[in-house]
């Protein structure tokens, strides 16, 4: 598989001079097209900073980020992002929230309505297109946010603790929906999480970070075929990976 994104010796320092805080340092990471990469670490390990660098929201103070999407195949279709909170705009209907990225790209919104409705149906949101976000439950709002992240077929899907504010059962539902969405359209995905089980269940590769400054401690390849069944969580191999990563995270 070709490499979509290359990070070379990336460092991010907040503030300047000696008082500055080094958030991440010496980061080398390759992300291949179609790969799902999980990033786990404790709070303060710089995993969110790393995701922001990948998203282009934070410029590294050292090192380089090489993005190949523009040259190879398909063209650059931008980034889809999903945060811990749905961040929906309360004055827009669900459908118009989902179409927001299209509007922001200046494309013809009408051409994407059918796709939005199809995504909504896949996410179990059929019939809610004219509802307002605040009329929906938390889990439904997060599904709307996922539709919005996917509407423009992003070349890179970035998830920042996307399910940590949901209850355990809703979270498992979201794992299934997310996996379906990723394999259906083969999204290259980076998932930042502090939930090791989530990382192991969803990722091809788990990047374990250690803190202050944030560095990549080790990468663990998860060999199970995707999409994975929720029942995998109860298998021994799965739990061996979880235990191994937990140990690598230290205490």
């Amino acid at each position, binding site marked *: 598989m070709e490499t979509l994104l290359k990070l070379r010796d990336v460092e991010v320092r907040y503030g300047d001079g000696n008082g500055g805080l080094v958030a991440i340092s010496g980061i080398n990471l390759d992300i291949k097209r179609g790969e799902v990469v999980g990033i786990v670490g404790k709070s303060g390990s710089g995993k969110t900073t790393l995701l922001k660098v990948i998203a282009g929201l934070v410029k590294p103070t050292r090192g380089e980020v090489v993005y190949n999407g523009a040259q190879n195949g398909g063209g650059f279709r931008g980034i889809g*992002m999903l945060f811990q909170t749905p961040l929906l705009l309360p*004055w827009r209907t669900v459908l118009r929230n989902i179409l*927001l990225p299209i509007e922001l790209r200046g494309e013809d919104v009408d051409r994407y309505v059918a796709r939005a409705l199809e995504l909504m149906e896949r996410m179990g949101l059929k019939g809610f297109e004219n509802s307002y976000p605040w009329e929906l439950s938390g889990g439904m709002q997060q599904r709307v946010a996922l539709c919005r992240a996917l509407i423009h077929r992003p070349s890179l899907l970035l998830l920042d603790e996307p399910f940590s504010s949901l209850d355990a059962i809703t979270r498992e539902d979201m794992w299934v929906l997310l996996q379906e969405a990723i394999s259906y359209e083969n999204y290259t995905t980076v998932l930042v999480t502090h939930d090791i089980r989530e990382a192991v269940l969803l990722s091809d590769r788990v990047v374990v970070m250690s803190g202050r400054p944030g560095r990549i401690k080790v990468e663990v390849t998860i060999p199970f075929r995707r999409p994975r069944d929720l029942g995998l969580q109860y298998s021994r191999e799965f739990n061996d990976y979880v235990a191994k990563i937990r140990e690598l995270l230290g205490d």
Partner: protein
Amino acid sequence: MAYRARAASSVLILLAICVAWEVAVRLLNIPQFVLPAPSAIASTIARYRDYLLSNLLDTMFASALGLAMAATFSLALSVVLAYSDSIREAVYPILSGFNAIPRAALVPLLALWFGLGMVPRVLTAFLIAFFPVLVPTLTAMVTIEKELWEMLVAFGASKSQVLVKVAIPRATPYFLSSLHMGLTSAIVGSVIAEMVASDRGLGYVILSSTSRLDTPLAFSCLLLLALITFALSKVLSLTERRVARWAYRASI
């Protein structure tokens, strides 16, 4: 039903106050020029109906025009100041400084420059109503949550897109509710200007009637001003709930 019960109890309380007032004035033999009884105020309103109405309309016209100018200008300025951090940092302190000037003190100057007509009244209403509309509107525009901002940037939004698609809709309910403050301020402004530099409007009527010790007429003006401000405030509330229904989601 609960609403009706509440409205009915408000009316009852008002009635009780009026009755107590009436009784007190009569029992204590308070002279009319000190405190007129409600019945005296009512008969004054009836007697001077046309005179009061034309002056009321005059005051309302000046206030409405002043408020409309304040609303338009505040909104436009908020957009500019929300768009450019550097302009905001330069201009906002100047505006705050200007806000520190008691606007009533400017009326004689306005009269000097523009005479005794409509202009100083509209301008005073505008000057007093402007700041209470600007501050909440601008604040709502510039306090977009960091995560939302980052998400929009990640989706490739430009600064003007953030402004048009997020900042302005987000500020709409704040802008509309600030118009309540703006409305009362504008009426205060035009009434002050009418007292200082006009021969028309309820402010003028209050000033001239109290100087003749015609206190019932002054009270009639006060009552009319209170009623019309209350009514207009209600109209604004209804508009708010229509235009920015999403902002009142807790009560839907």
